[in-house]
């Protein structure tokens, strides 16, 4: 375990537990991107600020470069200076498969533009946002830094299901791309957490290492989606002797 990088000196990288790395010559910062939108800031509609101060009577849109606030479900601006449904953000959530995210958010945006009565009140959406932030804080996570991670919030599949569920509950189940009410948007097999996914990959690599004949045995007759899902399930808890 290494804690965070504390500082750099002329010959080393110092961690907060006072351990050092001295042999490094290249550092790559895979540390993400700034959530900023200069053309909104230029117009006075997205304040860039060092901290998201939540004053009770100021809900205008702002960003600290890591988190844009206040947005319902990372997409709908709750800024009171314009009507709800005037401003949407697409594909903000981090660590979420982009395609599903885009489809689901587009469904929400297009249906609520076509029929604004689908939108709840600003206050209701705002309370939902505050509750979501509180749940993150309860897990020890600062929403101002990691608020747009749906992985840390509810998980990407639950995120899609919540948004599609919102539309289903308002009579849109059965519309194109929206399953009937009571049926979830995410296929159940997609609701794998990261350790499960890693198990599938690593155990499959073990299978591959046994050679082509073993691989062929595993894949024999596996054609339908259900059969592929069953194969993944089998890989999750694979013992050495089962390969």
């Amino acid at each position, binding site marked *: 375990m290494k804690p965070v990088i504390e500082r750099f000196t002329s*010959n080393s990288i110092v961690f907060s537990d006072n351990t050092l790395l001295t042999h490094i010559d290249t550092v790559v910062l895979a540390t*993400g991107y700034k959530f900023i939108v200069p053309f909104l800031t230029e117009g006075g509609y997205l304040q860039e600020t060092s901290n998201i101060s939540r004053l009770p009577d100021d809900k205008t849109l702002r960003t600290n470069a890591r988190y844009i606030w206040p947005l319902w479900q990372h997409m709908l601006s709750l800024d009171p200076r314009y009507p709800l449904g005037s401003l*949407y953000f697409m594909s903000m959530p981090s660590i979420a498969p982009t395609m599903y995210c885009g489809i689901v958010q587009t469904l929400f945006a297009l249906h609520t533009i076509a029929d604004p009565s689908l939108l709840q009140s600003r206050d209701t959406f705002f309370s939902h946002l505050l509750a979501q932030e509180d749940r993150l804080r309860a897990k020890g996570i600062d929403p101002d830094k*990691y608020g747009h991670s749906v992985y840390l919030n509810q998980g990407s599949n639950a995120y899609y299901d919540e948004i599609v569920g919102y539309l289903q509950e308002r009579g849109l189940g059965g519309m194109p791309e929206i399953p009937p009410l009571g049926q979830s948007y995410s296929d159940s097999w997609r609701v794998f957490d990261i350790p499960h996914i890693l198990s599938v990959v690593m155990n499959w690599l073990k299978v591959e290492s046994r050679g082509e004949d073993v691989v062929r045995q595993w894949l024999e007759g596996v054609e339908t989606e259900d059969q592929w899902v069953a194969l993944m399930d089998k890989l999750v808890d694979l013992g050495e002797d089962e390969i």
Partner: protein
Amino acid sequence: MITNWNLSSYIRLSHEVLRAQWKGTSTAGHWALRVHDKTKDVIIEAAYDHLFVAVGLKHYPYEPHFEGREMWEHSGIKRQIYHSIYYRSPDVFRGKNVLVVGAGPTGVDIVSRIVNIANSVRFLWIWIMRMILCIDFRQRRTFQSIQMPFQDSPVPSLRACT
């Protein structure tokens, strides 16, 4: 799809939105956009009811502030620190001793590409909540065959680390 739905007249290529401002109140109004039409090099004003920000929010690199960063970089020969947005090819890491900070998808991808090429790779697996795991990839031969950064770290311990 554009041809099929006859959408081309609604799409403006080579146009940059310079400014968006709401003209109106909390219940009615429109977005006033100032747009640079780069095809004719003119500024145009346009009004819209709804605005989708779908420009992609993976454009401006975020780099945490590190005290002494410049001192470290300039004290050694060919020391470099830069954001992953500038990553192009694993070849430039040949012979380097590399520290990759940030274990989102990008960090994992970069590590898996350079681990067989660099002299050594250290990976800061930032799993939020300030829990950081530093993995030294010494058994690099195992990666050669499978290209999977966590092959030598079984899942239960990975979970314990997070």
